């Protein structure tokens, strides 16, 4: 049985387009990929929380996270992967390590380079090991499969 997260190319393109629009090539952006509780390995959409942002950071407040939790409970969905852009190379920074939206072991975090303007090339996917530790999720297809719609 495949345990990798499945996302369609079309949906991932929509997330990237949102990140590019939000960041306008000078700010980071963060979104959360979601899945239904019944099919938690199939990404069915994304949430774009209100966030403060600069060229090197984003921050989502407790109040906004409360709104996100409201949305998840109302729609019986769960966050399965955090996605955010970086100004340059994609990697998991110390801040990314310490302040994810979900702290469950096995949670995924996708970092997109160059504010999303290079598409999904050279992205960095990390998996949470707990206690602040992450490792590169390789090979990527074991964790995230991008399907042709």
């Amino acid at each position, binding site marked *: 049985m495949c345990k990798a997260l499945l996302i369609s190319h079309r949906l991932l393109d929509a997330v990237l387009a949102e990140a590019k629009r939000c960041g306008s090539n000078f700010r980071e952006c963060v979104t959360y990929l979601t899945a239904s509780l019944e099919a938690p390995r199939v990404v069915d959409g994304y949430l774009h929380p209100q966030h403060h942002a600069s060229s*090197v950071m*984003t921050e989502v407040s*407790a109040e906004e996270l409360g709104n996100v*939790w409201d949305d998840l409970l109302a729609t*019986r969905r769960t*966050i399965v992967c955090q996605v*955010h852009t970086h100004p340059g190379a994609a990697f998991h*920074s110390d801040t990314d390590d310490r302040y994810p939206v979900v702290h469950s*072991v096995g949670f995924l975090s996708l970092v997109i380079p160059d504010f999303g303007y290079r598409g999904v090339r050279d992205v960095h996917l990390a998996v949470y090991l*707990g206690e602040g530790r992450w490792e590169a999720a390789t090979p990527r297809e074991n964790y995230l499969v991008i399907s042709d719609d």
Partner: protein
Amino acid sequence: MNDRFEVIFEYNGQPFSIEVEGNQQIEGAWHRALAHFEIRPQDAENLGLFKDGNQIDRNQSFKDAGIQPGERLRIQPIVQRTGGSRV
């Protein structure tokens, strides 16, 4: 008088019911909920327990916190951050 009742911890869209006693410290049930959601205790530093949008002190009993049977309590991050610079 039976002082046992159920409360529901919610995390990332998922509910988890726990039977507690009114005089029980919230902290013990908090740790059970963390384990259920596969969250290590060391990761709780950036998490809070919220009731009606307000963070509550876990070092008190359910009764002292005014938590009623069937009440929903949220485990959520206090903040979520990303940062693209290398430190």
